[in-house]
Structures are given as C-alpha cells and as structure tokens.
C-alpha cells in the first residue's frame, strides 16, 4: 500500500493522473447536482412551516459541510506536508483553501438569504452562521500567510502550521460560539438539518452533498495541478511537459 502512497506523492505522477481524472469527476458532479436539484426543487414537498423557502437548504447545508470538509483536507495535508516534507501536500492545502473559502462564503450568503424570510433579518448571530464566519476568517488568514512570502516553500510551511493551530482551535471556537449563542438567544431552529426531516426532503440533500463532494474532488485536483506547476516550474518533468504539445 505504501508504494501507492509514494507514487501518488510524486508531482508528475499526480499531475498526469489528475489530467485524466478531473473531467470524469467534473461531469459526474454536474449530473448528480442536477439530479439533486430536480429532487430538491421540484419533487420534495414544501415544508409545513417554511413552505418553499426551505429549499435553500439544498445549497446551504452542502456548502457549509464542504467548507468544513475542505478545512479538514487542509489540516491533514498540512500535517503530511510538515511531517514527511512532501511538497505535493502543501500544494493540496494551497489548492483547497480558495475552494473552502468559496464554500464558506456561499454558506453565509445562502444562510442569510434563508434567514430573511424566516427571521426577518439578513443576519442572525446564530451559532452555526457565526462559526461559519470565523471559519471564513481562518481561510482568509491562511491565504494571506501562504502568499506573503517570496520563498513559496516557507509560505507553504508557515501556513501549514497556521492550519494545524486553526484546526485545534476550530472545535473550541465552535463550542464557545454555541455556548455564547444559547446564552443570549434560544437555539434558532434551522429546520431540516436534523435527520428527522421527511425522506422526500432528505434524499435530495444527500444527493446534493455527494454532488458537492465530487465537485470539490474535481476542481481541487485542477487547482493542485496549477499549484504544482507554480512550484515545479523549473523541474525537468515540467520542461518535458511543455515541450510535447
């Protein structure tokens, strides 16, 4: 098994593998997301409380989930990058960060658009939305630090440490915000996130999450290719890559 891990870790191998895999993942994610949207927007029954307004859940929950998943990917990649000094792992972190930030931003926007009809205001200091906002700040911090150094290697390693520090803090932040929120305001019910929602509503949600996961896989790999090219521009395998059309 270990040789597979080593092979995957070599940039040229990963670059060519990604070149083949990205289209498959991309088209698969498109199909699944369309199926999920059809299920969620057309088939699923309206919510007894929120009517059709709850349908925002089909992008809010998947993007919130992906924003946390992307950070987990970054934390694992940071650890691997620092422990085994694997350049590719840092490229994975650098590739996942903008995607994770986009998902966090999307979760915030859709969350507030969902909040307006439900609570009458675009922003509610709900525990989940607040944690999402802080997660977005962590992403911005990572990206800022990663690009602040001339020597990309130092930038990678410094931001990897920041990611590990952030991942230790994230659960603490989440629970302290939860604690702070229930203190000042009863837990606002985000309908449909528990597993008690009707199957007709839940199935499209799971399909959408699967679609988002595939989307993430496809386009984090494409970004990794870019990050690998940026870091390995002077190596001979990149020269060979360029010479053959």
């Amino acid at each position, binding site marked *: 098994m270990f040789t597979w891990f080593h092979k995957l870790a070599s940039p040229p191998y990963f670059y060519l593998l990604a070149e083949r895999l990205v289209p498959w993942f991309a088209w698969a994610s498109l199909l699944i997301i369309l199926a999920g949207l059809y299920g969620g927007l057309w088939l699923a029954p309206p919510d007894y409380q929120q009517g059709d307004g709850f349908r925002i859940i089909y992008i809010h929950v998947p993007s919130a989930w992906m924003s946390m998943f992307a950070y987990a990917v970054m934390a694992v990649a940071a650890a691997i990058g*620092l422990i085994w000094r694997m350049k590719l792992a840092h490229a994975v972190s650098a590739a996942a960060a903008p995607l994770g930030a986009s998902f966090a931003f999307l979760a915030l926007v859709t969350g507030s658009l969902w909040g307006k009809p439900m609570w009458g205001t675009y922003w509610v200091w709900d525990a989940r939305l607040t944690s999402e906002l*802080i997660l977005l*700040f*962590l992403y*911005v*911090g990572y990206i*800022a*630090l990663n690009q*602040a*150094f001339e*020597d990309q*290697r*130092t930038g990678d*390693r*410094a931001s990897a*440490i*920041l990611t*590990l*520090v*952030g991942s*230790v*803090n994230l659960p*603490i*932040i989440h629970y*302290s*915000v939860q*604690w*702070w929120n229930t*203190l000042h305001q009863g837990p606002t019910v985000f309908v449909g996130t528990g597993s008690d929602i009707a199957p007709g509503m839940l199935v499209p949600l799971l399909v959408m999450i699967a679609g988002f996961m595939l989307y993430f896989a496809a386009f984090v790999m494409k970004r990794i290719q870019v990050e690998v090219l940026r870091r390995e521009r002077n190596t001979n395998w990149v020269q060979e890559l360029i010479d053959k059309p």
Partner: protein
Amino acid sequence: MKLAALVRRDLLLAYRRRGDVATPVIFFVMVTALFPLALSPEPALLRTLAPGVIWVAALLAGLIGQGSLFKSDYEDGTLEQLLLSPVSLELVALLRVLTHWLVTGLPLVILSPLMAMLLFYPASAMGMLIASLLLGTPVLSLLGAVGAALTVGLRRSGLLLPILILPLTVPVLIFGARATALASQGEPVAAPLYLLAAMLVLALTLAPFAIAAGLRVSLES
C-alpha cells in the same frame, strides 16, 4: 541555569526598552476612553458595555505589541544561536512569551480596574475582572506569539499578524467578557472562569510547539 540567564536577559532587554512597555498600556487606555465618547456618557449603558469594551481593548492592546516579539533576535542572529543551543526551543519560546506577558499583559491587568471605573463597572466585581484578565491575557500573548513566530521573516509582519490571530482569540474573548459581565451582575462566575483556565492550560502546553515550529520554518528560509 541557562534558562535563568535567558529570562534575566529578556527582562533586562525589556527594561532597557521601557518605551515598548508603554505602547500597549497607552493604547489600552485610549481605546477604552473612546467608547464613552462614541456611545454616550450615560452610566447604565456604559456599565452593561464595560466588560466587552475592556476585553476588546485588552485583546487589541495585547496584539499590537506582539509583532516585534522575535524580530530583533531574528535580525541579529540570536535566534539561530538559540536554535543550535541544547536548550529546547519550545521552552525558550515559552519563557520569552511569559516574560513578554509580564512586560505587556500584566500592566494591562493592573490598569484594568482604573479603566473599568471610567465605565462605571461595579467596584465589587473588580476582583473578578482582574481574575478573568489574569487568565485570559496570557492566552492572547501565547496566540500572538504563534503569529509573531510565523511572520518573523516578513518585513511588515505587523499588518498580517492580527488577521491570522484574531479568529483564534474568539473563545477567550467570549468567556472573558462573559465572566466579567456575570461578575458585574453579582452572579456566579465559576463556569466561564474554569473554561478560561482550561484554555490557558491548553495554550501553555500546545502553543510553544507551534511557536517553535514557526520559528524553525522562518529560520530555514
């Protein structure tokens, strides 16, 4: 013995640069004084806002002094020597942060009752205010030091450091301000104080590793 010499050296350096000590303290006083001007001098309002204002001001004052924590040692090569010396870098980092806290964090804690009075914070709760700040400010210093270690190699790291560290200080801010607010209403304060203490222990044990790792990365470049 070597560690005592290091601590003595740090304190001596801090003493020699007394000016640096004053900046966070003056910043803390000014920021706290701004709020009544911005909001209203009305005691009832200020009393409810006092905990939040004091904690945000202490947090920001603590952060501005952090940028230069390792800067001078990085530039004059002392950091390389420390890296090569048999003393573990983690311990050196911890001592450096604690001496830095003595010089910047502690003055804030000592001054906080005075500022609290400006905001009509009840005198009976001053003890709790000091207790919560005593627990909270070291955590802020430790987190700030992680940011300082990661950005020591950058020319103008001062701008970047708060962006990296502020999200991480949210739990301390939440529980610190909460403890101070509960105290002002005379309610039991145990829960947030225990949590603050737990965060202090966590930061004391884990942060030095992050700081040392950050310094090693910055020195390698």
